[in-house]
């Protein structure tokens, strides 16, 4: 049974917003998702009724806040099927995906990378999974290798043995590309990495919100993602670290909360995972994020993936039948629906994406235009920027039809004055 989209839409107050006198069509979900009323209510409810610092009081509210806060950690561990999470919870709260990656680059990777070691990323990484490794490799005199992609912006697996070899220390790859919609065969890459004893970091910023992701099944060493892209609040990121690494991982920030015993000369660390969370954490957003996880679980991640695949198939079909669009605009990314997410990225020679985006905005349609924080990829494709429509659980076929109508109209508008 398909999720009831019209029912779901009613949970998202912002979807009834009027923009430029038109009904909003929100297709910028890869940048950030909208929030259901359940999450918004949880956030205000926390501030109205529970607000208190965690882990440090004996009073009732502090106990309640701590319980709710830690419950969400359990929920998230279960959501990604972390092994044995009840014994040792491997979920560390950060500010966002970017911070999660930076932390690993400054701790585990900094401690383990040696001269001439290699880190492998792909040609389609978000800047946040590229720049931290650039700096680390420079400092350590290590090599950063960029796994090549083919003409459909998919990883070119014929390079697997060449790029992932006995020098490889870390493979840090995006699961689902925010700018091309490519879903990478991470299981194949993880298996290869394991065979050469390399560790694997998965950038799940665009996959965890949209499909089932199971770290036990994947056997990755790190998984990072952001709450704000999966119906949750901004300002909250997740860092999952596999147990064997977690046990020896050095804390990156030091201070209150993360210590057990402190003298003027020295300190000992608190238990995992609290030793990685110095200072007052983002309590309110964690607790509200719990409601986002509940919301996603209620629908089911497989159903969400199914819905987005159907929308994508619907979109590809429209494109296929529209001669004008086919001739005047290029869609990047895999042609096979199994390897692609609900992210559609276009380029047209007729007009710059920012100008097209302004016309779409005039009709209430929110799309992303620009380089999508993947500048090297844009340069390699020879385009300055692209126009991206990205779907989520609340989007409908009517909205996609509207998008294509307005996209064609904007192209024709600029085409006519040529």
């Amino acid at each position, binding site marked *: 049974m398909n999720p009831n989209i019209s029912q779901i839409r009613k949970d998202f107050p912002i979807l009834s917003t009027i923009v*430029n006198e038109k009904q909003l069509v929100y297709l910028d979900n890869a940048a950030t998702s909208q929030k259901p009323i359940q999450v918004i209510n949880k956030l205000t409810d926390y501030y109205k009724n529970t607000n208190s610092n965690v882990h440090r009081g004996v009073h009732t509210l502090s106990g309640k806040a701590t319980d709710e806060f830690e419950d969400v950690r359990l929920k998230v561990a279960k959501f990604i099927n972390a092994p044995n999470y009840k014994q040792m919870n491997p979920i560390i709260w950060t500010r966002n995906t970017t911070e999660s990656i930076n932390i690993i680059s400054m701790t585990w990777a900094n401690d383990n990378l040696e001269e001439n070691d290699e880190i492998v990323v792909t040609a389609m990484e978000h800047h946040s999974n590229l720049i931290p490794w650039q700096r680390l490799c420079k400092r350590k005199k290590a090599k950063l290798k960029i796994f090549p992609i083919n003409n459909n912006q998919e990883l070119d697996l014929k390079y697997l043995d060449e790029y992932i070899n006995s020098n490889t220390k870390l493979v840090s790859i995006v699961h689902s590309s925010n700018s091309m919609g490519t879903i990478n065969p991470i299981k194949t890459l993880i298996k290869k990495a394991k065979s050469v004893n390399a560790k694997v970091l998965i950038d799940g910023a665009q996959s965890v919100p949209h499909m089932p992701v199971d770290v036990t099944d994947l056997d990755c060493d790190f998984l990072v993602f952001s709450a704000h892209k999966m119906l949750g609040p901004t300002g909250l990121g997740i860092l999952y670290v596999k147990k064997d690494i977690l046990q020896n991982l050095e804390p990156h920030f030091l201070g209150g909360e993360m210590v057990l015993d402190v003298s003027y000369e020295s300190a000992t660390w608190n238990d995992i995972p609290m030793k990685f969370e110095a200072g007052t954490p983002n309590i309110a957003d964690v607790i509200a994020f719990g409601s986002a996880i509940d919301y996603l679980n209620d629908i089911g991640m497989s159903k969400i993936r199914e819905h987005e695949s159907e929308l994508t198939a619907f979109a590809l079909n429209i494109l296929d039948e529209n001669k004008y669009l086919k001739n005047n605009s290029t869609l990047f990314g895999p042609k096979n629906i199994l390897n692609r997410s609900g992210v559609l990225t276009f380029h047209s020679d007729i007009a*710059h994406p*920012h100008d097209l985006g302004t*016309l779409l905005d005039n009709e209430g349609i929110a799309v992303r235009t*620009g*380089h999508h924080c993947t500048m090297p990829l844009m340069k390699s494709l020879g385009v*300055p920027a692209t126009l991206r429509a990205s779907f989520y659980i609340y989007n409908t076929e009517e909205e996609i039809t509207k998008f294509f109508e307005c996209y064609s109209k904007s192209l024709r508008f*600029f085409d006519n*004055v*040529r």
Partner: protein
Amino acid sequence: MYDEKILTLYNSIIQNHSRAPQNQSPINLITHQAIAINKFCGDEVQLNLKYNQNNFNISDLQLIAKGCSISIASSSIVSTLIIGLSSEKINLTRQIFEKMLDNQNITDTEIMLLGDLIYFQPLSQIQIRKKCSLLIWKSIENIKPLNPIEI
């Protein structure tokens, strides 16, 4: 159809400037140069300039612009306006332009100075695209003398 503001902004004069910007040909002597990049979107404007002997005003220029139609068209129009103007006049033009974008009243004489830049008036209602039209002015802020390059 689109709003009035969109139709004004993307009228054929602006479109022509963006498709075929003025002052693209190389000049024979470059005495000054200016570059501005909009880090947010990657748009880029470069001005190669020839100042007259007393370094007082621009006698010739070449514009190299990459980006959206608003940044290219505004650069092209500005490039036609600034030749021969003193830097005070150039600054004044910019001030009037910014006044227009901020929805402040401008006088008829001020409008005369703006020339075709008047078509960017709708940007006062499309905040997010204002910076596209300001890139050329950013570059003008950064004009630097060069050891003259003869071409």
